[in-house]
């Protein structure tokens, strides 16, 4: 025991500090990450194996995707979506998946230009063909313009546009599911917030999968459901993946969401794994109560303009664009997506 302790603790001299260099739990080489909830330290090689394995396990465990299916991967160029694309590309042969990345240029000035540049670079590095759709080219307006002219917050407009385009792309291209880079640190704070505010239905929609309906509503899957934001970042760094390192000009990092996020961080620090257990129990409840499918489909109808899901006779995207641009842009987006797909062949 004494010998083991000596090898783990290295005294660096009276002018330095005592270092307890972490060793990989699998091979004993230098660790680059400590994972308290898994009680493991991992080196670069074993962390990549761990991360990709966790993504593959999540896909299988929650039945996100079946063998032979195609998946549209939403790639913004940020660390999370880049990690998702890389991990899914790595496990695709084992799971027999067809990965189809899509990037939406949102027109947020330099930030969007940088996101596009990074996405192209990542795609080259991973050897995948990423479809690109420019909002300005297709509908004639950017997110800031749509936001300003509609007097709606840019983040609300951005979320609406992205959800619409991703679903429309999946439907137009006949893809089985849409995968997004939401990890546990994105989802857990919102789940807890919804529970605190008494909206259990909204919390349960943050499950790993929300079912769809063929030709109308794409299934949405979250393969990063059981990995943390920090793990996504470390994975991207180790793999040498480029990712956008600047903040979105509209990002807001305050309010109740930030407080809940902080609370979960502190809680997980003192009780490692509690966040994961919380989200696993949420996923079990969503399965048990059959959320999303029954609720969502009962609530939805078809937009009279574009034919895609809507809570009333006009969907949110067509309503927004009709108000701002004078005509609903949903049908234009669907046509443009056909061209994007055709031009890549």
């Amino acid at each position: 025991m004494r010998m083991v302790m000596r090898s783990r603790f290295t005294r660096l001299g009276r002018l330095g500090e005592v270092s307890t260099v972490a060793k990989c739990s699998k091979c004993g080489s230098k660790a680059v990450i400590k994972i308290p909830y898994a009680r493991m330290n991992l080196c670069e090689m074993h962390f990549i194996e761990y991360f990709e394995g966790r993504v593959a396990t999540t896909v299988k465990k929650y039945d996100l995707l079946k063998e032979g299916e195609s998946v549209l991967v939403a790639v913004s160029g940020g660390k999370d979506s880049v990690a998702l694309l890389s991990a899914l590309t790595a496990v695709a042969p084992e799971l027999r998946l067809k990965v189809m990345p899509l990037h939406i240029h949102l027109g947020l000035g330099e930030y969007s230009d940088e996101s596009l540049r990074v996405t192209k670079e990542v795609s080259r590095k991973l050897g995948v063909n990423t479809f690109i759709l420019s909002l300005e080219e297709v509908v004639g307006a950017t997110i800031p313009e749509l936001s300003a002219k509609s007097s709606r917050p840019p983040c609300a407009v951005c979320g609406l546009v992205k959800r619409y385009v991703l679903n429309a792309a999946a439907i137009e291209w006949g893809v089985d599911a849409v995968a997004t880079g939401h990890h546990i640190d994105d989802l857990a704070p919102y789940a807890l917030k919804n529970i605190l505010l008494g909206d259990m239905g909204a919390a349960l929609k943050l499950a790993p999968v929300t079912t769809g309906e063929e030709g109308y509503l794409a299934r949405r899957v979250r393969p990063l459901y059981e990995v943390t934001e920090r793990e996504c970042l470390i994975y991207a760094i180790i793999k040498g993946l480029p990712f956008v390192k600047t903040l979105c000009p509209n990002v807001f990092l305050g309010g109740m969401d930030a407080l809940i996020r902080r609370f979960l961080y502190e809680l997980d620090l003192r009780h490692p794994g509690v966040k994961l257990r919380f989200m696993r129990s949420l996923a079990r409840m969503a399965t048990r109560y059959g959320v999303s499918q029954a609720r969502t489909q009962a609530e939805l109808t078809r937009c009279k303009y574009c034919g895609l899901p809507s809570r009333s006779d006009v969907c949110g995207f067509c309503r927004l664009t009709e108000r701002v641009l004078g005509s609903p842009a949903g049908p234009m987006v669907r046509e443009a997506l056909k061209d994007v797909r055709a031009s890549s062949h």
Partner: protein
Amino acid sequence: MIVRVKIHPTKREVTIEKPGRKVVRVMTLLRELGYGVYEVVVVKGGRPLTEDDVVADGDEVEVYEVRSAG
């Protein structure tokens, strides 16, 4: 000792000085910068460091804040 730190995504650059020290643990560096261990990723030469690793005089490290950027 002097360690230069570049912080992402704010691109802030900070110099940490520890007179009389030859090395300093990453954990100490982070305390100095006001970060919790799991709030950031510290990278030296393209490789992530754990909180137990040390940085030496003249080292340049990058600190990535773990937060969604958009």
